[in-house]
Structure formats: structure tokens, C-alpha cells
């Protein structure tokens, strides 16, 4: 085992650190969601600058606009981004759509779309979730009906994150009524201004926003299909793995802890600094430990990718599980340090730490993307530990509920 980085890797880290140190303004606050045009333009600008240097998708090959970094080097780049609180407007394109097109796209699509993503000029929406297809991803109701060289899409997507100004959509839709349901889904990638697309904003309690995307007779050419027809579900499952190998989470958590320690040393209650409170000391230490466990879990996944190129079901990693476990406890503990001040938002003159703890707490209530905690537990129980699963058809209560719904 080896828990450190080589000299070259450290050099690379410093090079990336230096880029952001110079490019970002000193008052940057990565926690503020890009709620208006000004903020999103700012991040888009940084995104383009990073894209021009290849830092956006460093793991992609040079011809796609990347730098050909190894898995470990990409892990380092993710850590650096997280340290500076960088939120790429197009993180969906970089982490979901790009890898999907890499794995399953035609040569033509790769040539045209990948440089578009890696240059940072675009924002993508990943349109998978529907009102009736959340955790049950395969239950897609949006239809794509073949009409000559075209497909006609009709349906609705919901909880689509990634800001509010998409250029491209990455859509999963039903192309066949099959049993089981997941054998009839297909992926498409097409411009967001295709006639028939409309988008409605859904403000969220974390301050950022999600969207509803509607398709009314949207005609897209068959060349916009990514991967094979009716194989969309399998393609998505494979690309989702990329979402779970992020080394950045622990680094931003650690940075927040650093600020918090500083705050606890300076802030006084009854004449005594917060840090002298034994309960606070204990919780600070517990959070540092949880953060380290998370950091190593993420690096372990990263290392497995590097070793085996892709993950099998038995390699299911615990990163997402720990992210969610920490998201449940840490923001709540941190708020408790503040007493009555906990409830003050960014903008109030009395708010501590610019209201960042309140914001963090509200944000983490929504850590359900790419599978809720419960789903992660079921996956670990079923796939890793091999525990049995109850088939719905054996349960009379479930069968009755399904009947009534029909």
C-alpha cells in the first residue's frame, strides 16, 4: 500500500493550484449558487479559461480537448477544483454526457461534441429523471417514436440540475415497450433550442435551482442517438459509475473544517472561545475523521478504476455512502455550534460565516442524486453482501397498490 503521491503528481497539483490562485478573485465564494446571469457568466468565463488549458476534462485524450491524464492525475485535478470551491456550470456535461459519448458515441459525435464540452463553452442538462422514474430509472415514460430518419419526442423530465441555461440536452427516452422495462430505452444528445423543447425553473431549498424540461413533438435526427437503440439504460448505468469516483468532496469538506476551526478559535461565548467547549472539540475531531474516511474511500475507487479500467458490481464503492452519511450529521453539528445564530441566512448582518453553514445545511438535505442513501444501502446489501431481495409479485400489498394505480 502507498498513500502518498509521486513528485510529478505533486508538481502537477501545484501547477493546477497556481492556475486558480491567479484566476479566481480574492472574494470568490464557491458556495454561492449561480442564481443570476452575472454569477453564471463569471463561472462560465473561468470554465472557458480552464477549458482552453485542458484542465476541464484532463482525463480525456488530447484530440477530445483533454490532457490524457491518468486516473490518479484526474483525482488530483478534482481535489484542486474542490479546494478552490470551483463549481463548473457544465459539471453534468463533463461528468455524465462526455463520458457517455466517449464510451458509446459514434466517431462523428466524439469529434464534434467532445471538444465542445472540454472547451467549457457549453452547458449540458442530463434529462433522465421523470415524475415516475426516479430511483426506478427504467420506468421512463418519455417516448421517442421513429419517423423516417427522425425520432419524435414527447414527455416530461423533472429535477434536472445544472443551472438554468442549457445548450445541450442528454435525454433518455423510451423507444420500445419491452419487458423488462429497461430494455427499451435509448439516449439522445441534441441542442436545447430544438423546436418543441421548453424549460421551467424549480427553485430548491439549497438556493440553487432544478428544472422541468418538456418535450412537445421534438423532432431529432437519428444521428443524435448516442449508443445503440434500446441500450440506453445499460449505457447510463455504466456512465453513472463516474459520478461516484469524485475525490473532491473530502477536500472541500476539509476546507470548510479549516474555516470552522478558525471561527471557533475567534468566536467567544461568555468570554470563552468556542473551541474550548468540550462538545465542540469532540465534534470537530469526529468530522475530521469522517472526512478522512471519505477521502480514502474516494481514492480507493479512483485506484480501482486505474487498476481495472472499469468497476464490476462487486467493486461497488462506499464513497457515495459516506458522502450521504456525512451530509446527514456534519452540517447539523456545525449549525449547532452557532446557537441561535444558526438560522441566519447569507445577507443578514448578524449571520456568522456569511451564512455559509445555513446554506450548507439546506443544500445537503438534497443529496439524493445518483441514488438515495437507501438505494445505496440496497445495492450494497444485494450486490456486495449477496442478501436476498423480495420480488414485488410475492407481496400482496404491493400488488394491490399497483392494481389500484392502473
Amino acid at each position, binding site marked *: 500500500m502507498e498513500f502518498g503521491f509521486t513528485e510529478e503528481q505533486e508538481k502537477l497539483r501545484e501547477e493546477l493550484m497556481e492556475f486558480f490562485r491567479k484566476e479566481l478573485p480574492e*472574494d470568490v465564494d464557491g458556495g454561492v449558487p449561480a442564481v443570476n446571469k452575472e454569477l453564471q457568466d463569471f463561472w462560465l468565463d473561468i470554465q472557458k479559461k480552464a477549458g482552453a488549458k485542458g484542465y476541464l476534462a484532463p482525463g480525456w485524450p488530447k484530440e477530445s480537448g483533454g490532457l490524457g491524464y491518468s486516473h490518479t492525475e484526474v483525482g488530483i485535478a478534482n481535489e484542486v477544483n474542490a479546494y478552490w470551491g470551483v463549481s463548473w456550470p457544465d459539471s453534468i456535461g463533463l461528468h455524465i454526457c462526455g463520458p457517455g459519448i466517449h464510451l458509446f458515441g459514434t466517431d462523428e459525435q466524439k469529434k464534434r461534441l467532445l471538444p465542445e464540452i472540454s472547451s467549457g463553452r457549453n452547458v449540458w442538462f442530463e434529462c433522465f429523471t421523470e415524475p415516475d422514474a426516479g430511483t426506478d430509472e427504467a420506468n421512463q415514460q418519455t417516448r421517442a417514436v421513429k419517423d423516417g430518419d427522425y425520432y419524435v419526442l414527447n414527455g416530461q423530465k423533472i429535477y434536472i440540475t445544472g443551472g438554468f441555461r442549457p445548450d445541450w440536452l442528454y435525454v433518455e427516452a423510451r423507444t420500445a415497450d419491452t419487458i423488462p422495462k429497461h430494455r427499451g430505452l435509448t439516449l439522445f444528445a441534441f441542442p436545447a433550442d430544438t423546436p418543441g423543447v421548453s424549460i421551467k425553473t424549480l427553485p430548491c431549498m439549497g438556493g440553487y435551482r432544478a428544472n422541468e424540461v418538456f418535450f412537445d413533438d421534438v423532432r431529432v435526427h437519428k444521428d443524435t442517438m448516442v449508443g445503440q437503440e434500446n441500450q440506453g439504460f445499460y449505457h447510463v448505468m455504466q456512465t453513472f459509475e463516474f459520478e461516484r469516483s469524485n475525490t473532491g468532496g473530502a477536500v472541500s469538506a476539509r476546507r470548510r473544517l479549516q474555516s470552522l*476551526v478558525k471561527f471557533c478559535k475567534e468566536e467567544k461565548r461568555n468570554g470563552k472561545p468556542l473551541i474550548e467547549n468540550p462538545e465542540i472539540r469532540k465534534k470537530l*475531531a469526529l468530522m475530521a475523521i469522517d472526512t478522512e474516511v471519505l477521502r480514502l474511500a474516494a481514492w480507493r475507487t479512483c485506484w480501482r478504476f486505474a487498476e481495472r479500467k472499469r468497476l464490476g458490481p462487486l467493486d461497488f464503492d462506499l464513497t457515495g455512502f459516506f458522502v450521504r452519511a456525512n451530509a446527514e450529521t456534519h452540517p447539523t453539528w456545525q449549525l449547532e455550534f452557532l446557537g441561535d445564530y444558526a438560522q441566519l441566512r447569507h445577507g443578514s448582518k448578524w449571520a456568522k460565516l456569511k451564512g455559509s453553514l445555513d446554506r450548507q445545511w439546506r443544500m445537503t438535505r438534497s443529496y439524493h442524486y445518483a441514488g438515495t442513501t437507501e438505494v445505496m444501502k440496497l445495492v450494497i446489501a444485494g450486490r456486495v453482501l449477496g442478501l436476498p431481495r423480495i420480488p414485488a409479485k410475492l407481496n400482496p400489498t404491493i400488488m394491490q397498490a399497483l392494481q389500484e394505480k392502473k
Partner: protein
Amino acid sequence: MDFSLSEEQQMLKTSARDFLETECPEDVVRKVEDEDKAYSPELWKKIADLGWLGLVYPEEYDGSEGSVMDLAVLFEELGRAMCPCPFLSTVVLCGLPILEAGSDAQKKDMLPKIVNGDLILSLAMTEPEACWDGKGWDAEGITVKATADGDNYVIDGTKLFVWDATAADQFLVVARTKDGGAAEDGITLFLVDAKDPKVSCTVLRTTVGDKRQAEVVFDKVKVPKANMVGPLNGGWAPLYKALKVGMILISAEMVGAGEHATEMSVDYAKTRIQFDMPIGINQWVQEHCVWGFANVEGTRTVVFEAAWMLSEGMPCDFEVSMAKARANEAISEAFWRAHQVLAGVGFTTQDGVLPLYTKRGLCQKIYLGDTDFHLEKVCQAMEKWPEPEKPQGKALGIFDVPEDVQVPVWDVWRDQTKGKLW
């Protein structure tokens, strides 16, 4: 970053598991609980023959020059088998300070004997008062005095929770030789013959029910100067170095035990039938199994990270304390979860394996620093953290927007200059 075991480590792990499954099965563990010396001399001899006791020592003392990492791999297996032997006391807690600070004569005489299994040592450190307030494993907790008297020192006082005391040939006594100044500065290590008539040992009745821990009273014991290990007042540094290794190894033992307890509960969940179904079909039961698994896996990485840093000689007090605190809490929880799944078969002491683990788990959790002790160490390290770095670009003043400012409705804004792709 590399999370794999080396080929040698993998071999060590496999052969250790095989050996312990045959030589140290459950009934041996139970039998040793009743032994006055709290270990099995036959098993100890076999362990010595395998060369495990010399794993971290240099070749000149019959060792094989391995690392703390190798020991951690081995200790996971020892923990899984609950192997009752004075390995940690002899080789690590007492042997390493001798290797680090002992005289040439001490090293030449004692280390080969340790490696060959002919000498058992026990660390007499913690004291009745210090065990109350989390200072048991800190220099501040050492109050038993050693006073100079001609060519001898006289040690007078009581040490409590001394592991492997009844098995020991000699004690390594941690004594205070100077008052005032920093707590770490006045500590000296002495080797004391266990057969000295002025040393008395009383076995403690503990949760585990074995005879591994004792109260050891040193009643004005005379110790020749030559028995001093390391310099006068300079005992803390070599001792603490060994304690850190001990903290990691006991954590590794806990990981091994927690892993087996979780495996047992998963197996049981698959095979125990109630209401015509395996109980593992229930999601609450799955929840317990998943938490057990996550706790064990998460702990293993932090433990091995600290073991790696120790092997590389890096400063790692922070990482060691994180690992021990995590092991304390996470592995206790893994045992608790296992109890929920195993229920009845998990608490009968006559034929259940889980109670053996759980009871030992409690002692391991306290040994070499409980959770509060280590959390405090972690927090002390955090107080020395630097502030997060700020970027150097010109301030823009755009980040102070109230977040409830609503965004205008969606508009097509794509850079149209490049034309449509399709």
C-alpha cells in the same frame, strides 16, 4: 495511491489465516481464558517458529526487517482469530523501545530472545488515578516514582490494567524520575524482573473473563542502573513511538474482528429462516449488515494509512489518533449491528462466537487510549491547521447576492455563431 497488498503481505495474510484457523480455533481461545498465564505456551512457540515475532526487527537480532505495515496485516488476522498471546506487549510496546533506545548489551541479550519466543515482556504504564480522566496513556498520567539510591533506583507505586502481567518474565516500567517542567521530560523506562519478591501481581476480573490484565504493585523495588532503557528522563520519546505502533496494531486487530463479526451476521441473515423467508430479505436486517460492512471497510483504510505513515517514518500523531478513535467507534458499532442480526445465537456465551468478539472489543476500545482521549488529540492537531488559502485575483464584489433573487424565465442563449450541428 495504491491500496493493494504486496505479494509478500498477501502471502503473510493467507498463511496467517490458515495457521490461526487450525492452531487457534474458538476452543483454544476459550481454554486460554482460564489459564493463569493468559496465553498458550505451545501456540506461542509455534508463532515464534513462524518468525512473526521478529517481523519488525533487524537481521542482526534474528529479525526479518519488515515494516509496521506488515505487522498491521498480521494483526488483522490475529484479531480475527482473537489469538490470545502477549505479542503486542512483548514485541511492540516493550521490544520497540528497547530496539530504539536500549543499550547494546540489552539489545544483544533481549531482542533475539524475544524473536525466538523465549522472553515475554509486559508494559507497566497506566495508573489508577490517570485512568479516570483520559490521561492514562499520556505522560501526565505517570506519577509512580523511581528514586536514585546509589547504583540503584527504587520504584514504588501501583500500576493498573497491566496487560500480560502474569505471563511476563520482565516488566518495562514507566516511571517518573523528575518533577516539574514538561510532563514528558521526567520519564524513564526500567526493566524489572517479574520474579522480584517485591513485585506483586493480582489478576483483574474483567469483561472478557480471562486473566490478561492485572494490578502490579512495586513495593520499593530496587532496580540496578543498568536496567534503565534509554537515557535518564528520556524515556517518553521511544515509548510514545512504540505506543503509536501499538495503537495502530490494536486498531488493525479490531478491524479483523469486526470483519469476521460482519461476515457471520451476513451469513446468518442468508440462512436463518423465519416466516418462510431468510431474515436477510428484511431491509432493516440489511441495514445492519450494510453498516457493519461500511464501518469495517471505512476503518481499514484509515488504519492502514496511519500504518503506512509509521512505516515511512512520517510524523503522524494526527493520523494515528484518527485511526484509533475511528476503530473504537466504528468497530463497536459493527459488533452492535452484528448482535442485532444474530440476536439469540449472538448472546449465548457457551457456543456463540460473537460474545467473545464483543467482550474483547470493549477492552480493545479502552486499551491504548479510548475515543475521548484520541478525539482530543485529533482536535489539538486541528487547532494547528493553517487557514484555508485565498486566491489572489482582483475582488469582483458579485458574490454577495441574496440567493432568493429569481432567475428570468429560460431563454435560448447558446452561442449561435458556430451554427447548428444537426
